[in-house]
């Protein structure tokens, strides 16, 4: 069928017939369907699929900026696994993702429950809550960088004046544990709105009658939440958690602006280390190998997401 018009055109059939045949061909549902999706697929194959293949090739070769190298097998992986900085980064990534995600889940559900109430200024409050998610992250992180300054930190200034700590207070971005706490704080500040707003949408679908029935039966508000609300919002919560897992684990902006992985690599994540090794250091092979450590988690999330979508 698809060859029809071209064969006719080659045979020199008169123009009107050719045009109407072409149109007839194009009007078929499957031809039109493929035609519309071709640009998107072409884009994603050339600029997502192909680069992903390149990343794998880089990681298996000694590829440096400006000098394509040859196949070296798993040498890069061996080298990074031996590397102390990489081991630290590996640990950091799980600590960072684990703590930040837990805080976002707990606080996000709590915030959504508060926002679900029929408050005055509901729209304004929701608008404010979503703000950190909308403003460019790199720019709002600059404000945090200033708030955590080693000398002029407003956080320390306030804590000292309130007699919570003794002067001069912690050097937030210069001490390992504090730097990790700072990076997690900013990540939670930035990611919480997404959780809250999506969970809120889920809460809106919980039928009031269920909660009223539970209340009549004498269930406490905690038990109503745990046995009625939570099971009903579980699907929405699952999707948000899966999304956030990938994007927390692969975070770059906050760490790059706030600490650049320091002090002594204690806040490096795979993405920031890959940037440092691959682009600033020029070792694309090792950089690609580092960034590919994001992939197994991504694959896991994709697997669960697809299973969930099919269940729907």
């Amino acid at each position, binding site marked *: 069928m698809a060859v029809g018009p071209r064969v006719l055109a080659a045979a020199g059939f008169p123009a009107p017939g050719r045009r109407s045949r072409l149109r007839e061909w194009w009007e078929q549902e499957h031809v039109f369907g493929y035609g519309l999706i071709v640009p998107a697929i072409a884009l*994603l194959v050339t600029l997502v699929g192909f680069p992903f293949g390149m990343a794998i090739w880089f990681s298996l070769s000694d590829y440096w900026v400006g000098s394509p190298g040859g196949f070296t097998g798993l040498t890069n992986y061996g080298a990074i696994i031996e590397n102390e900085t990489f081991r630290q980064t590996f640990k950091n990534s799980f600590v960072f993702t684990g703590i930040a995600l837990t805080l976002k889940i707990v606080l996000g559900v709590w915030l959504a429950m508060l926002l679900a109430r029929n408050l005055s200024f509901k729209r304004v409050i929701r608008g404010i809550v979503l703000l*950190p998610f909308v403003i460019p992250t*790199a720019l709002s992180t*600059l404000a945090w960088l200033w708030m955590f300054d080693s000398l002029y930190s407003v956080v320390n200034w306030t804590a000292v004046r309130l007699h919570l700590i003794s002067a001069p207070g912690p050097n937030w971005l210069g001490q390992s544990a504090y730097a990790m706490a700072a990076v997690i704080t900013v990540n939670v500040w930035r990611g919480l709105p997404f959780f809250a*707003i*999506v969970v809120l949408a889920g809460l809106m679908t919980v039928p009031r009658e269920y909660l009223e029935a539970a*209340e009549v039966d004498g269930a406490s508000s905690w038990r109503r939440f745990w046995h009625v609300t939570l099971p009903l919002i579980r699907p929405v919560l699952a999707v948000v958690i899966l999304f956030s897992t990938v994007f927390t684990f692969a975070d770059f902006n906050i760490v790059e602006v706030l600490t650049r992985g320091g002090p002594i690599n204690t806040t490096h994540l795979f993405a920031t280390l890959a940037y440092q090794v691959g682009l600033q250091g020029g070792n*694309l092979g090792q950089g690609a190998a580092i960034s590919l450590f994001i992939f197994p988690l991504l694959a896991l999330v994709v697997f669960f997401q697809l299973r969930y979508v099919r269940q729907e």
Partner: protein
Amino acid sequence: MALAGSRGARVRSNVFAYANLAPYIFFVLFPFYFMVVTSFKSNAELYNLKSIPFWIQSGVVTEHYALLFQKTDFVTWMKNSLLVAVVATTVSVVISILAGYSLARLRFRGAATFGTAIFITYLVPPTLLFLPLSQVVVWLGLSDSISALMLIYPTFLVPFCTWLLMGYFRTIPREIEECALVDGATRMQTLSKIVLPMAVPGIICAVLFSFTLCWNEFTYALTFISQSAHKTAVVGVTSDLIRGDIYFWGSLMAGALLASIPIVIIYVLFLDYYVSGLTAGAVKG
């Protein structure tokens, strides 16, 4: 939740809600407030440990803004950001309308597989691909130019917009399209004259999100571009106002504020679209 409770109980529970929300709202807004205060404060006061950091005591100054406009390429950065965002958004939304309509409405072999493939690319974080893409950009002769960003941004915009628009297209009754086809409209006419006008809210949503994502993008903009005059606003402000160990805090905050303002304006005007896009994107995803 006070559902069947008395009026008094409901008021008490709302007071409880406000009391809980207040500290959180302070936490959300303080960094922005601090940006504003810092950007208008004189250096003498900023770097005086004895002064109170929360407000301005010794007069409002505009020198940090002056430095931003006179000593940096700030205006060029804003223009670059705008240009990249407009081009990448336009291209992506057009591609996504076609793909989204095709996947939501037309029956052909492999449609489900394409849908899954697009969904998977939606989840791929930029940090997984920026190293190989930096080489692709070099090969295409686009290194250090904003064209590179216009080319690469659709890779994360198209999956998102396609997914979002599929949801909207599915809500349009199929019968309307079938009527148009029976009446002799071509498929393209049906899409452009019947379906698109009905999907306007979805398209606005896709445009808003795309524009915001482009404007805010940091990873690719930082890695592909090094020349100051070709930077976007987000990267220019974060990189050019820090010289070694010297941070121009006043101007950094002024730049961060001004570069955020276009997004804040759009956000305030279209708040409901953001909320619906966010929930549709995740819930349908």
